[in-house]
C-alpha cells in the first residue's frame, strides 16, 4: 500500500476526462439547435449580392428556393457557363417554375398557403433578363411574396 502511494505521487496526475462527454454533448446540442439540415446540393455556383436593409425569413418551412447561377465546374461541359435555374436537385427552365410552385404549395398546410415565400438566390453576376423572366413566371403562378436573398453588408454605410 505504501509503495503504491509513493508511485502515484511521483508522476503527474492524469487530467480527469469524466466531464468530457458532457462537454461534447453540450456542443452537440448547440449545433443541433442552431443549424438546419443541408437540403439540396448546389448544382449552380452562387455568390449572393450584399445589402444592408435586410429582413430575416421567419419560417423556413414556408420558403421555396429558386437558385440561379452559372453551373458548377462538373456541369459546365453539359450545361455551359450561362446562368441556369436550379429547382430542388435539378436544372430547370423558366417554364418549370409554375409546376414547381404549385407542387410546393400543395405540400403546404392550408393555413400557411398565403404566407408562402419564394426566395430568389441569384448569383450577383447574373443578368436581369433571366431574373425578370422568373419574376413573371412567379406572378403567373401567383407566388407574390418574394425575397431577394442577400448577405449582410455592414461596410456599405
Amino acid at each position, binding site marked *: 500500500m505504501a509503495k503504491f502511494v509513493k508511485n502515484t505521487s511521483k508522476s503527474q496526475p492524469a487530467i480527469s476526462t469524466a466531464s468530457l*462527454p458532457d462537454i461534447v454533448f453540450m456542443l452537440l446540442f448547440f449545433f443541433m439547435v442552431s443549424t438546419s439540415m443541408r437540403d439540396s446540393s448546389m448544382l449552380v455556383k452562387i455568390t449572393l449580392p450584399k445589402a444592408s436593409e435586410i429582413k*430575416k*425569413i421567419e419560417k423556413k418551412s414556408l420558403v421555396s428556393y429558386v437558385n440561379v447561377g452559372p453551373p458548377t465546374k462538373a456541369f459546365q461541359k453539359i450545361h455551359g457557363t450561362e446562368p441556369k435555374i436550379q429547382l430542388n436537385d435539378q436544372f430547370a427552365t423558366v417554364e418549370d417554375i409554375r409546376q414547381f410552385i404549385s407542387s410546393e404549395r400543395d405540400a403546404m398546410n392550408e393555413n400557411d398557403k398565403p404566407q408562402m415565400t419564394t426566395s430568389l438566390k*441569384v448569383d450577383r453576376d447574373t443578368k*436581369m433578363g433571366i431574373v*425578370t423572366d422568373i419574376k413573371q413566371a412567379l406572378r403567373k403562378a401567383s407566388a407574390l*411574396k*418574394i*425575397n431577394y436573398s442577400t448577405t449582410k453588408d455592414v461596410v456599405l454605410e
Partner: protein
Amino acid sequence: MSRRDVPEIPSGSMADIAFMLLIFFLVATTMSTDSGIMRKLPPIAEQDQQDDIEIKERNVFVVLINSNNQLLVENQILNIKQLKEKAKEFIANKANLETLPEKKQVDIDLLGPTMVSKQVISLQNDRGTKYEMYIAVQNELTKAYNELRDEFSMGKWSKKYDNLSTEQQEAVRNLYPMRISESEPKNIGGK
C-alpha cells in the same frame, strides 16, 4: 453478504459516441440564416382592366438602370451613393416644392390628419443589367424609406421604427408607404 448489483454501463466510450454525432451534425447541417430584401410582386393584370391610372409626372420618381449598370434618376445621371439622398428628398418633400410630389390629407390612427405625399418610385431596368446593381438600387431605395421612417419615429416617440409597437409601426408605414413600381424591362443593350 453481497448484494447482486446491476453492473454499471461503461461510460468510457460515451465521449467517442458524442464526438461522432457532433461531427455528423457539423458536416450535414448548415448554419446559414436566410435573409434578404422582401418584396411583393403585383398580381397579373386582368385582361379587361388595361387602362392605366394616370399619375402626375411630379409624383413619379423615375429610376432607370441601363445594361452598363449606369443610373439615370429623374433625367440626371447619378452615382449609386447619391441615390438615397435624392430619393429621401423626393419621398418626404419637406419643403413642399412644386416639382416634388403633391400631398394629400389622410387620417392616420395615432397621428390624426396628416399630409401624406403621393409619391411613387418607378424602377426600370434593362435585361442586361447586372443583378448586383439591381439589388444595390433596391437596397438604397429601401434604405431611403427606412431612414425616413426612423427619423419620424425618433422625432415622435424617440424610438427607432423597429422598436415601435405594431400600431405605431402601421401609422408610420401609412405616412411613408413604400411604393416601388417596376415596369417591364426593356431590351436595349442586348443580352
